[in-house]
């Protein structure tokens, strides 16, 4: 259902498996901790050449960032203790390949920029990013969707723990190349969003250089809902949930547009207070463990009066989209772990009596007015409720423009205001990369096959059935399959070795490297053993660390000629002469079973079958 008033754009970030973008570290995650470094970031000078003193003061009392690293996955570049190396050319080739696949126009010279980010997720205080191409398009069932830009950027450090005064990161992820592709705001249905994301993801994976697995692709969504506002949803990891986020966001915005209407009937923004007040006295002997713990840690309890809001904040049981949740999101952005509000109280150990006393302290009417509470460090409690107050004001206007974080259940929560235009400066430590026409020509000449093209080729040229062809075409091992076939393997054998046999052996806990599988399939093609023994051979080789040749010998599979086999078969038939006499060809099944027991893996079943049949026929 396409809705022209719903306008969505997508930004896809996919990690590449090419080695890091500005150093030579691998792109693996790593739990080892060899060093820990503590840093602070300081706002740089504004365009006016001056450091914003307020921002500086904030930064100075603000957070320490600590970074854990191991030499296996990070080096001095990630620690910001060594200048960046040149832009990874392999990653650049991947980006240029996607540009060619989408008919985007590549830059003639790629300039790396510093995008200022001082939340600690980059040790430098900026993210390095480079615009590689502009324009281009993809095709989905709604039609052609234009692309705006494609960039290569470094992934951020991995957050391990976020506190109000301290954040801890790991450096393993920092610097992994991300290819970032942004569509124009031309998607008009939840399904179109999913389809476009899938299409772009497929194209990136077709290069064979995308990382796979959880967290290797992240999707940001831009949504504008009629009468609502533009909202950015960050960090969707699950493709199948994309339509849910769009639908939920439409619903959320509708809810708050309606709430604005209802609120305006009972109260007005002018009734809102100047700010929160300290109500710690009320909770001196509280039974609420949350409040008690906060007070014990030199915290305070602050309250924000919300005149006329009674019943409008909502409860967990009623709906996912409730104002109380939004206020809590704003409070959280200032360091609170959450807030209590009157629509869900008494609860959490806070009593009716305490609620009454807070109302008294605020001068509010329990029948009409609401309030919310934060128990925390005094500064955090106050700032958190000031943020909540800001959101209470916008509740009268409808939906604020904001950046929201995607949660795993399809819901989102407030993260921060929409970013202004990014502050970007040239990364003077990285020389620009020239894209000469020869390089683009070479890339155009070697464009990867898309999965649907691959599947068609597998079905038509290799005569695989649709199901297997499709599974191979979308598998990350399609390249290995192509190699096996090129090396002379039967397509069906190559397919089952990649799709079934190797996974089975690996399920038993033995890693089968590509090289070992190729060796095994090649030995099979040369007749060293038979198809039905492939799994046993691989398992033996992987488990015992043997070469394929030795595994074959170890299993006693090596070389049985047809004549030797005939002798064995005739022996079996002779031993069962009585059965043959009585049952004639009816003895086939039983004797075949015995023959296979002796010859399995040494001779193809079809041949054994023929030899048994011949031996029986000779005797009847």
């Amino acid at each position, binding site marked *: 259902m396409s809705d022209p008033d719903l306008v969505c754009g997508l930004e896809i970030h996919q990690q590449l498996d090419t080695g890091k973008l500005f150093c030579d570290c691998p792109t693996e995650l790593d739990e080892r901790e060899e060093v820990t470094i*503590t840093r602070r970031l300081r706002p740089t000078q504004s365009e*006016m050449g001056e*450091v914003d003193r307020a921002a500086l003061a904030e930064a100075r009392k603000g957070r320490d960032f600590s970074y854990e690293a191991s030499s296996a996955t990070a080096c001095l570049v990630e620690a910001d203790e*060594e200048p960046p190396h040149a832009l990874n050319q392999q990653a650049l080739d991947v980006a240029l390949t996607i540009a060619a696949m989408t008919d985007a126009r590549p830059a003639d010279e790629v300039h790396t920029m510093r995008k200022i980010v001082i939340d600690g997720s980059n040790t430098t*205080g900026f993210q390095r990013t480079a615009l590689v191409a*502009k324009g281009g398009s993809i095709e989905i069932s709604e039609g052609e969707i234009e692309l705006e830009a494609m960039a290569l950027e470094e992934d951020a450090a991995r957050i391990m723990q976020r506190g109000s005064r301290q954040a801890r990161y790991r450096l393993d992820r920092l610097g992994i190349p991300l290819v970032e592709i942004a569509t124009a705001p031309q998607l008009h249905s939840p399904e179109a969003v999913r389809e476009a994301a899938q299409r772009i993801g497929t194209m990136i994976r077709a290069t064979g250089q995308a990382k796979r697995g959880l967290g290797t692709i992240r999707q940001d969504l831009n949504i504008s809902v009629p009468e609502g506002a533009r909202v950015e949803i960050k960090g969707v990891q699950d493709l199948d949930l994309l339509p849910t986020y769009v639908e939920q966001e439409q619903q959320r915005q509708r809810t708050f547009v309606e709430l604005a209407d209802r609120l305006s009937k009972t109260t007005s923004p002018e009734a809102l207070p100047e700010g929160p007040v300290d109500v710690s006295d009320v909770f001196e002997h509280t039974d609420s463990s949350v409040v008690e713990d906060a007070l014990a840690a030199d915290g305070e309890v602050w309250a924000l009066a919300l005149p006329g809001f009674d019943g409008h904040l909502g409860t967990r049981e009623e709906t996912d989209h409730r104002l109380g949740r939004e206020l809590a999101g704003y409070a959280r952005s200032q360091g609170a772990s959450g807030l209590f509000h009157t629509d869900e109280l008494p609860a959490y150990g806070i009593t009716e009596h305490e609620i009454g006393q807070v109302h008294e302290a605020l001068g509010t009417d329990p029948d009409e007015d609401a309030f919310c509470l934060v128990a925390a460090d005094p500064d955090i409690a106050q700032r958190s409720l000031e943020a909540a107050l800001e959101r209470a004001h916008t509740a009268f206007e409808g939906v604020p423009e904001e950046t929201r974080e995607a949660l795993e259940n399809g819901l989102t929560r407030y993260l921060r205001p929409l970013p202004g235009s*990014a502050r970007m400066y*040239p990364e*003077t430590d990285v020389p*620009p990369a020239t894209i000469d026409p020869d390089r683009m020509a070479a890339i155009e000449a070697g464009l990867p096959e898309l999965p649907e093209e691959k599947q068609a080729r597998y079905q038509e040229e290799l005569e695989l059935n649709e199901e297997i062809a499709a599974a191979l075409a979308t598998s990350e091992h399609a390249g290995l399959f192509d190699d096996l076939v090129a090396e002379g393997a039967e397509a069906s054998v190559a397919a089952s070795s990649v799709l079934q046999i190797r996974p089975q052996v690996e399920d038993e806990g033995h890693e089968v490297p590509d090289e070992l599988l190729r060796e095994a399939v090649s030995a099979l093609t040369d007749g060293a053993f038979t198809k039905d023994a492939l799994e046993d051979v691989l398992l033996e080789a992987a488990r015992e660390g043997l070469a394929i040749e030795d595994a074959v010998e170890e299993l006693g599979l090596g070389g049985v000629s047809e004549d030797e086999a005939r002798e064995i078969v005739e022996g079996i038939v002779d031993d069962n002469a009585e059965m043959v006499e009585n049952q004639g060809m009816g003895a086939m099944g039983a004797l075949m079973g015995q023959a296979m027991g002796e010859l399995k893996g040494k001779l193809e079943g079809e041949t054994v079958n023929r030899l048994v049949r011949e031996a029986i026929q000779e005797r009847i």
Partner: protein
Amino acid sequence: MSTDQASSADQLLASVDAEPGDRVRVHRDEDTLEGRVMPRHGFSDPDVVVLKLDSGYNIGLRVDEGDEVERLETGGEAPEQPPAMPDDVDELPTVALLGTGGTIASFVEYRTGAVHPATSPEELAAAVPEAFEHARLDPEVVFEAFSEDLTPDHWSQLADAVEAAFERGVEGVVVTHGTDTMHYTAMALELAFDELPGPVVLVGAQRSSDRPSSDAATNLTSAVRVAAETDAGEAMVVMHEGMSDETWAIHAAGRARKMHTSRRDAFQSLDHRPLGVVTDDAIEWNVEPREPADRVQRSGSFDADVGLVHSYPGIDADEIRAAARDGLVVAGTGLGHLPSHLAEDVDELTDEGTLVAMASQCLNGRTNMHVYETGRQLVEAGAIEAGDMLPETAYVKLVWALATADDPDEARELFRQPQGREQSPRTGFYYPREEAR
């Protein structure tokens, strides 16, 4: 691609008088892009126009004859709003801040992204306001040079500026310096004064100040604190103690050496404890600093010509002779060796009046030229042992000794006598690196 005539990019931009900062629209065969013209990068193709797009990204566009450009608006001058000095706080000590180049404090020019050093007091105050919380800073640019371009003549100029500052009555002096040769300058400033009435603190940065993670502001603030708050009459180096923004080490002149190309803690004290450590809350001394004197008193000069060579397998006589002038410092191998066949050349050089000093490229430990035959031959040839002096320290000291002494014997004596902390008859257990605290 490069030719004598202007590149196609320059011609195209010149055709509409477009300069960096101006907003232009570039029409090429199929597409049109709008943005501000940026200066080309040093490694850029000459036929490329660099535009800053509205998204903030810079992009390089190759242009040729058929392409067109329109100038939409001029960039104008960067908005000029002179930064103000912080209010004078009378009770704070005054510290002279002597600039020698390097980008310990710098501005980013927003139109182009170019980095300019902060030179005026106002610019510095705008860039690192927190340094002004500890002292009334009295900034002066002595010269502007990369530290790799400095010569002994620069040391003299700087010593003059330090002397003048103390004569004006400052409590301490901070010298901002490029890090490559900061350890040479520290030794020179230590030798240039018989008496110092306050600390002379050299400081640099390993990450430029145009980035949020720069070590410049915290290094500078720590240096200002040492200069303003401590009673010490000697030259020292203050830099990050480790990779974290937690502690800053105070190193003795003559013992500090740049030991890493890029890390924040590149400066290490060799064969010596760091003098102390600066934390957010305190300045803690490991070694009692030298008592400040009542007045400033100069000592000697740096007007002598000395060479410094590194011995290696295969080094020949020509190389030694080319480096030998009034004096020669050899960073010898091991205990202080050159290939034995060069002992004869050293003998000739000393006979010709060159002072030859042997230090060790091991950096840690002291020379001892009586253990092996080669060492004994070099001693007989007239070479002086540098003991536990670093080769760079020995070089600065030999320049000073030759320029200061009236005759070669006196120069030899000046070189051999400890003048500060640069040498000691005892070698402590500092290797490989004693934890500073």
